[in-house]
């Protein structure tokens, strides 16, 4: 397959897909090495940047996806296509705990947070950030919760390994699932992250 054709096909796939497209998928479909697909996406991305296009390709939830740029958020908001509400503090804390400790039961969440979490939990489920992932083999078979791919998209995370690192002694805590040092800026360094703050 010619480079130009592959590039156009990849652009089309990333554009059309409602979910992040992985390099592997693109590789399989086009019959090319996934690493080549990565390179082509990088080329596209550079093109978008250089031309100052309103579009960017971001790497979230394990795949590539088209997105707008933060600079144009105001204009889009005025289109009335719906803006997303920021999460409440309680929701953020709860979803963070689920993300780091999944799978986790509601009772375990409540023990850590010291407050009831049912309301927050249903908000998170409604927004598609959290879902039941199974049941714990314990009396009462309580439901275990985990995060969804939408959670990764929501926070612009490439994968769960991309979660903010938890420092130091977390590993010594019982049941704590410490993630390895995050690969912050790997070869996907070209992904434009929106400005912080």
């Amino acid at each position, binding site marked *: 397959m010619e480079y130009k054709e592959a590039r156009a096909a990849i652009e089309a796939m990333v*554009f059309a*897909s*409602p*979910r*992040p497209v992985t390099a592997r998928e693109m590789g399989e479909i086009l019959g090319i090495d996934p690493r080549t697909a990565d390179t082509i996406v990088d080329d596209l991305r550079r093109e978008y940047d250089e031309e100052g296009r309103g579009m960017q390709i*971001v790497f*979230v*939830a394990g795949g590539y*996806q*088209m*997105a*707008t*740029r*933060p600079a144009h*958020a105001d204009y*889009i908001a005025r289109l009335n*296509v*719906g803006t*997303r509400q*920021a*999460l409440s*503090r309680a929701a*953020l*804390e709860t*979803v*963070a*705990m689920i993300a*780091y400790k999944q799978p986790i039961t509601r009772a375990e969440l409540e*023990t*850590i*947070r*010291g407050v009831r979490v049912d309301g927050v939990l249903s908000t998170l489920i*409604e*927004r*598609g950030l959290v879902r039941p992932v199974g049941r714990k083999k314990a009396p009462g078979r309580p439901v275990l919760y985990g995060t*969804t*791919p*939408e959670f990764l*998209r*929501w*926070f*612009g*995370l490439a994968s769960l390994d991309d*979660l*903010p690192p*938890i*420092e*130091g*002694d*977390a*590993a*010594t*805590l*019982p049941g*704590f699932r410490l993630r390895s040092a995050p690969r912050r800026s790997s070869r996907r360094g070209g992904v434009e*992250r*929106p*400005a*912080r*703050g």
Partner: protein
Amino acid sequence: MTTIPVNVSGFSGTLEDLARAIEKGDADARSVSVHEVIRACFDELERSGEPGLDEVGGLLAAASALVAAKAKALLPPEPEADEPPGASGEGEGVAEGEGGDNGGEDDGNSALIAHLMEYRIFKEAVEELARRDEAWRLVYLRNSFPSGPRSVRPPEGVSLSDLIQALRRVLEGIPEDEFTALPTDDLSIEEKMDTILIRLRQKGKLVFRELFDGPVITRSEVIAVFLALLELIRLAKAVVRQDAHFGEILILPVVGGSDHGV
């Protein structure tokens, strides 16, 4: 950050330093009276005239760190290797670089401390997630709206009780299953769901009663088909609609409703 000086036996420095020292074991928690130290701090604050919000806040933060440190130092009755797992409480930039050096011998810390620690550790992660939440609100991912519930689609104009009534009417026309003691063919709701979807694709819409057409249908089969319909509604692959009261209940396919993954 508070800069109120503290002088107790064998220690002088700020309140935060004291908390940190206790946590590290550099100062003996037993010899420090939290009450006295904090009393002294309040006196100091009052002496300095009108204390600002920052100072009072800083004092509170440092005082809680002190209380936490003292509690931690006193609580676990572990004889040796009582090096605490980590840095002190509320201070900024304290935690870095202190983590990896206590080779895991602290696993047995009391659950209380574990929870306190856990909560504190999470706080930083939560801050970062909050920043990301804010930042990524400005980025519109393709097809990410509506990002809200992809959940149950309520029947349009048809309540669950309407459906059950309709089911009852269908069941009325069917005799009790015979030979119920004999094993019957396994009824697969999944299969029934597929059948309904295929028929919907062919016909565009189905009248409720048509679901139960077919050669010799048993009551168990009716129930299976009904459950399949409910499941399809739940998965947003089909909707039910009734255009008029007491009218026919229609089942319609949901266009593009089959894709569930993100």
